[in-house]
Protein backbone atom coordinates (compact mmCIF):
# COMPACT_ATOMS: atom_id res chain seq x y z
CA UNK A 1 0.00 0.00 0.00
CA UNK A 2 1.27 3.46 -0.80
CA UNK A 3 2.55 5.55 2.07
CA UNK A 4 0.38 8.25 3.62
CA UNK A 5 0.13 11.76 2.22
CA UNK A 6 2.78 14.34 3.13
CA UNK A 7 3.06 14.90 6.86
CA UNK A 8 1.56 18.13 8.22
CA UNK A 9 4.07 20.95 8.68
CA UNK A 10 3.86 20.79 12.46
CA UNK A 11 4.73 17.11 12.56
CA UNK A 12 7.65 17.73 10.24
CA UNK A 13 8.86 20.34 12.74
CA UNK A 14 8.79 17.79 15.55
CA UNK A 15 5.45 18.64 17.20
CA UNK A 16 3.02 15.91 18.21
CA UNK A 17 -0.72 16.03 17.49
CA UNK A 18 -1.57 16.56 21.17
CA UNK A 19 0.73 19.59 21.37
CA UNK A 20 -0.81 20.94 18.16
CA UNK A 21 -4.35 20.40 19.42
CA UNK A 22 -3.66 22.03 22.79
CA UNK A 23 -1.97 24.95 21.08
CA UNK A 24 -4.99 25.51 18.84
CA UNK A 25 -7.35 25.25 21.82
CA UNK A 26 -5.34 27.82 23.79
CA UNK A 27 -5.33 30.22 20.84
CA UNK A 28 -9.09 29.94 20.53
CA UNK A 29 -9.58 30.46 24.29
CA UNK A 30 -7.54 33.65 24.15
CA UNK A 31 -9.84 35.07 21.49
CA UNK A 32 -13.05 34.73 23.47
CA UNK A 33 -15.13 37.48 25.05
CA UNK A 34 -15.21 37.90 28.80
CA UNK A 35 -16.43 35.97 30.89
CA UNK A 36 -15.90 32.96 28.61
CA UNK A 37 -12.22 33.80 28.29
CA UNK A 38 -11.51 33.69 32.01
CA UNK A 39 -13.56 30.48 32.37
CA UNK A 40 -11.57 28.81 29.62
CA UNK A 41 -8.21 29.96 30.95
CA UNK A 42 -9.16 28.92 34.50
CA UNK A 43 -9.89 25.40 33.30
CA UNK A 44 -6.28 24.97 32.23
CA UNK A 45 -4.76 26.03 35.54
CA UNK A 46 -2.66 23.39 37.29
CA UNK A 47 -1.31 23.07 40.79
CA UNK A 48 0.72 20.07 41.84
CA UNK A 49 3.88 19.11 43.65
CA UNK A 50 6.40 16.68 42.21
CA UNK A 51 9.14 14.82 44.03
CA UNK A 52 11.70 12.67 42.27
CA UNK A 53 12.85 9.45 43.86
CA UNK A 54 16.57 8.64 43.98
CA UNK A 55 17.94 5.39 45.49
CA UNK A 56 14.55 4.51 46.90
CA UNK A 57 14.15 7.82 48.76
CA UNK A 58 12.09 10.84 47.73
CA UNK A 59 13.89 14.11 47.17
CA UNK A 60 12.54 17.48 48.22
CA UNK A 61 9.26 18.12 46.34
CA UNK A 62 8.91 21.01 43.90
CA UNK A 63 5.57 22.73 43.44
CA UNK A 64 4.28 23.70 39.98
CA UNK A 65 1.44 26.13 40.09
CA UNK A 66 -0.25 28.84 38.07
CA UNK A 67 -1.08 30.83 41.22
CA UNK A 68 2.01 32.36 42.82
CA UNK A 69 2.31 31.27 46.46
Amino acid sequence: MASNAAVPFWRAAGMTYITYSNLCANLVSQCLKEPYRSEALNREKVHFSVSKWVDGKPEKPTTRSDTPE
Partner: protein
Amino acid sequence: MLRRATTRILSHRRHCSTAEALKVTAADDLFMAAWKRTMPNLDPPKTPLSFLQPRPSTASAASIPSKMTINLVSSCSSGLSNKQAHMVIVPATTGQMGILPGHVASISELKPGLLSIYEGNEVTKYFISSGFAFVHSNSVADIIAAEAVPIEQVDPSSVQKGLAEFTQKLSTASTDLEKAEAQIGLDVLSALNSSLSG
Protein backbone atom coordinates in the same frame (compact mmCIF):
# COMPACT_ATOMS: atom_id res chain seq x y z
CA MET B 1 -38.33 -2.27 41.59
CA LEU B 2 -41.39 -1.45 39.52
CA ARG B 3 -39.97 2.05 38.95
CA ARG B 4 -36.83 0.58 37.43
CA ALA B 5 -38.85 -1.74 35.24
CA THR B 6 -40.87 1.15 33.82
CA THR B 7 -37.79 3.23 33.07
CA ARG B 8 -36.26 0.32 31.23
CA ILE B 9 -39.42 -0.12 29.12
CA LEU B 10 -39.49 3.60 28.37
CA SER B 11 -35.86 3.63 27.30
CA HIS B 12 -36.62 0.74 24.96
CA ARG B 13 -39.42 2.66 23.26
CA ARG B 14 -37.29 5.81 22.89
CA HIS B 15 -34.64 4.14 20.73
CA CYS B 16 -35.32 1.37 18.23
CA SER B 17 -34.75 -1.88 20.09
CA THR B 18 -32.24 -4.08 18.38
CA ALA B 19 -30.44 -7.25 19.22
CA GLU B 20 -27.76 -5.16 20.93
CA ALA B 21 -30.27 -3.59 23.29
CA LEU B 22 -31.66 -7.01 24.20
CA LYS B 23 -28.14 -8.28 24.96
CA VAL B 24 -27.58 -5.31 27.25
CA THR B 25 -30.65 -5.96 29.38
CA ALA B 26 -29.93 -9.71 29.50
CA ALA B 27 -26.54 -9.06 31.11
CA ASP B 28 -28.10 -6.54 33.47
CA ASP B 29 -30.82 -9.01 34.46
CA LEU B 30 -28.25 -11.67 35.31
CA PHE B 31 -26.53 -9.25 37.67
CA MET B 32 -29.83 -8.21 39.23
CA ALA B 33 -30.84 -11.84 39.76
CA ALA B 34 -27.50 -12.66 41.41
CA TRP B 35 -27.76 -9.59 43.65
CA LYS B 36 -31.24 -10.42 44.82
CA ARG B 37 -30.13 -13.95 45.65
CA THR B 38 -27.27 -12.85 47.84
CA MET B 39 -28.58 -9.55 49.24
CA PRO B 40 -32.37 -9.42 48.97
CA ASN B 41 -32.75 -6.54 51.41
CA LEU B 42 -30.42 -4.04 49.76
CA ASP B 43 -31.32 -2.03 46.67
CA PRO B 44 -29.09 -3.11 43.80
CA PRO B 45 -26.69 -0.46 42.53
CA LYS B 46 -27.06 1.07 39.11
CA THR B 47 -24.75 -0.75 36.77
CA PRO B 48 -22.90 0.97 33.93
CA LEU B 49 -25.13 -0.98 31.55
CA SER B 50 -28.21 0.80 32.86
CA PHE B 51 -26.67 4.16 32.00
CA LEU B 52 -25.94 3.01 28.46
CA GLN B 53 -28.34 4.54 25.98
CA PRO B 54 -28.69 2.17 23.05
CA ARG B 55 -27.93 3.74 19.71
CA PRO B 56 -29.92 3.12 16.54
CA SER B 57 -28.78 -0.01 14.75
CA THR B 58 -26.14 0.43 12.07
CA ALA B 59 -27.50 -2.46 10.03
CA SER B 60 -30.52 -0.57 8.67
CA ALA B 61 -28.92 0.38 5.37
CA ALA B 62 -32.21 0.26 3.49
CA SER B 63 -33.94 3.24 5.12
CA ILE B 64 -32.23 6.63 5.24
CA PRO B 65 -33.65 8.67 8.11
CA SER B 66 -34.88 12.15 7.36
CA LYS B 67 -32.70 13.80 9.98
CA MET B 68 -29.33 13.03 11.43
CA THR B 69 -28.35 12.90 15.07
CA ILE B 70 -25.40 15.02 16.06
CA ASN B 71 -23.31 14.72 19.20
CA LEU B 72 -20.83 17.49 19.77
CA VAL B 73 -18.38 16.84 22.57
CA SER B 74 -15.58 19.09 23.71
CA SER B 75 -13.01 18.69 26.44
CA CYS B 76 -14.99 20.65 29.01
CA SER B 77 -18.61 19.95 28.19
CA SER B 78 -20.87 17.93 25.96
CA GLY B 79 -21.96 20.78 23.76
CA LEU B 80 -24.78 18.97 21.99
CA SER B 81 -26.26 15.60 22.71
CA ASN B 82 -28.54 13.81 20.25
CA LYS B 83 -29.41 16.96 18.38
CA GLN B 84 -31.52 16.38 15.27
CA ALA B 85 -30.46 18.27 12.17
CA HIS B 86 -30.77 18.17 8.40
CA MET B 87 -27.17 18.86 7.53
CA VAL B 88 -23.90 19.64 9.19
CA ILE B 89 -20.80 21.18 7.64
CA VAL B 90 -17.55 20.26 9.34
CA PRO B 91 -14.15 21.88 8.74
CA ALA B 92 -12.16 18.81 7.72
CA THR B 93 -8.46 19.03 6.87
CA THR B 94 -9.45 18.25 3.28
CA GLY B 95 -11.87 21.18 3.19
CA GLN B 96 -15.41 22.03 4.27
CA MET B 97 -17.34 18.76 4.26
CA GLY B 98 -21.10 18.60 4.22
CA ILE B 99 -22.74 15.64 5.91
CA LEU B 100 -26.35 14.70 5.19
CA PRO B 101 -28.41 11.81 6.53
CA GLY B 102 -27.34 8.61 4.81
CA HIS B 103 -23.74 9.74 4.49
CA VAL B 104 -21.26 6.91 4.17
CA ALA B 105 -19.48 6.05 7.40
CA SER B 106 -16.22 7.97 7.67
CA ILE B 107 -13.69 9.44 10.04
CA SER B 108 -12.26 12.88 9.31
CA GLU B 109 -9.63 14.89 11.09
CA LEU B 110 -10.76 18.47 11.60
CA LYS B 111 -8.74 21.64 11.22
CA PRO B 112 -9.54 24.88 13.07
CA GLY B 113 -12.71 26.18 11.48
CA LEU B 114 -16.42 26.72 11.61
CA LEU B 115 -18.91 23.96 12.28
CA SER B 116 -22.40 24.77 11.00
CA ILE B 117 -25.48 22.79 11.90
CA TYR B 118 -28.52 23.34 9.68
CA GLU B 119 -31.88 22.56 11.24
CA GLY B 120 -34.81 23.69 9.08
CA ASN B 121 -34.18 27.39 8.67
CA GLU B 122 -31.84 27.88 11.63
CA VAL B 123 -28.09 27.62 11.55
CA THR B 124 -26.05 27.03 14.70
CA LYS B 125 -22.38 27.82 14.32
CA TYR B 126 -19.54 26.66 16.51
CA PHE B 127 -15.85 27.34 16.12
CA ILE B 128 -13.86 24.11 16.48
CA SER B 129 -10.21 24.36 17.46
CA SER B 130 -9.32 20.89 16.16
CA GLY B 131 -10.66 17.40 16.51
CA PHE B 132 -12.32 14.57 14.70
CA ALA B 133 -15.67 13.88 13.13
CA PHE B 134 -17.03 10.35 13.08
CA VAL B 135 -19.98 9.60 10.82
CA HIS B 136 -21.67 6.27 11.41
CA SER B 137 -23.77 4.43 8.88
CA ASN B 138 -26.93 5.08 10.93
CA SER B 139 -26.71 8.86 10.32
CA VAL B 140 -25.24 9.59 13.72
CA ALA B 141 -22.37 12.06 13.61
CA ASP B 142 -20.02 12.39 16.57
CA ILE B 143 -17.86 15.48 16.53
CA ILE B 144 -15.20 15.72 19.18
CA ALA B 145 -13.09 18.81 19.60
CA ALA B 146 -10.66 20.20 22.11
CA GLU B 147 -12.56 23.49 22.14
CA ALA B 148 -15.96 24.09 20.57
CA VAL B 149 -17.22 27.61 21.18
CA PRO B 150 -20.40 29.19 19.81
CA ILE B 151 -19.28 31.81 17.31
CA GLU B 152 -20.98 34.56 19.33
CA GLN B 153 -18.42 34.12 22.10
CA VAL B 154 -15.48 35.10 19.88
CA ASP B 155 -14.03 38.59 20.33
CA PRO B 156 -13.11 40.18 16.94
CA SER B 157 -10.58 42.63 18.35
CA SER B 158 -8.51 39.84 19.99
CA VAL B 159 -8.52 38.01 16.67
CA GLN B 160 -7.10 41.05 14.84
CA LYS B 161 -4.52 41.61 17.54
CA GLY B 162 -3.48 37.95 17.41
CA LEU B 163 -3.20 38.02 13.62
CA ALA B 164 -0.80 40.98 13.73
CA GLU B 165 1.20 39.37 16.53
CA PHE B 166 1.60 36.03 14.76
CA THR B 167 2.43 37.58 11.38
CA GLN B 168 5.25 39.33 13.16
CA LYS B 169 6.28 36.13 14.97
CA LEU B 170 6.44 34.24 11.69
CA SER B 171 8.85 36.73 10.20
CA THR B 172 11.17 36.66 13.23
CA ALA B 173 11.00 32.87 13.79
CA SER B 174 14.31 31.06 13.53
CA THR B 175 13.90 27.40 14.46
CA ASP B 176 11.53 24.98 12.70
CA LEU B 177 9.44 24.68 15.85
CA GLU B 178 8.99 28.44 16.22
CA LYS B 179 8.01 28.69 12.56
CA ALA B 180 5.50 25.88 13.01
CA GLU B 181 4.00 27.53 16.08
CA ALA B 182 3.70 30.86 14.33
CA GLN B 183 2.15 29.17 11.30
CA ILE B 184 -0.37 27.35 13.51
CA GLY B 185 -1.24 30.65 15.17
CA LEU B 186 -1.84 32.23 11.77
CA ASP B 187 -3.96 29.29 10.61
CA VAL B 188 -6.18 29.33 13.67
CA LEU B 189 -6.58 33.10 13.72
CA SER B 190 -7.30 33.45 10.02
CA ALA B 191 -9.90 30.68 10.36
CA LEU B 192 -11.43 32.61 13.28
CA ASN B 193 -11.36 35.76 11.20
CA SER B 194 -13.11 34.24 8.22
CA SER B 195 -15.69 32.52 10.46
CA LEU B 196 -16.57 35.84 12.06
CA SER B 197 -17.22 37.45 8.71
CA GLY B 198 -18.48 34.45 6.75
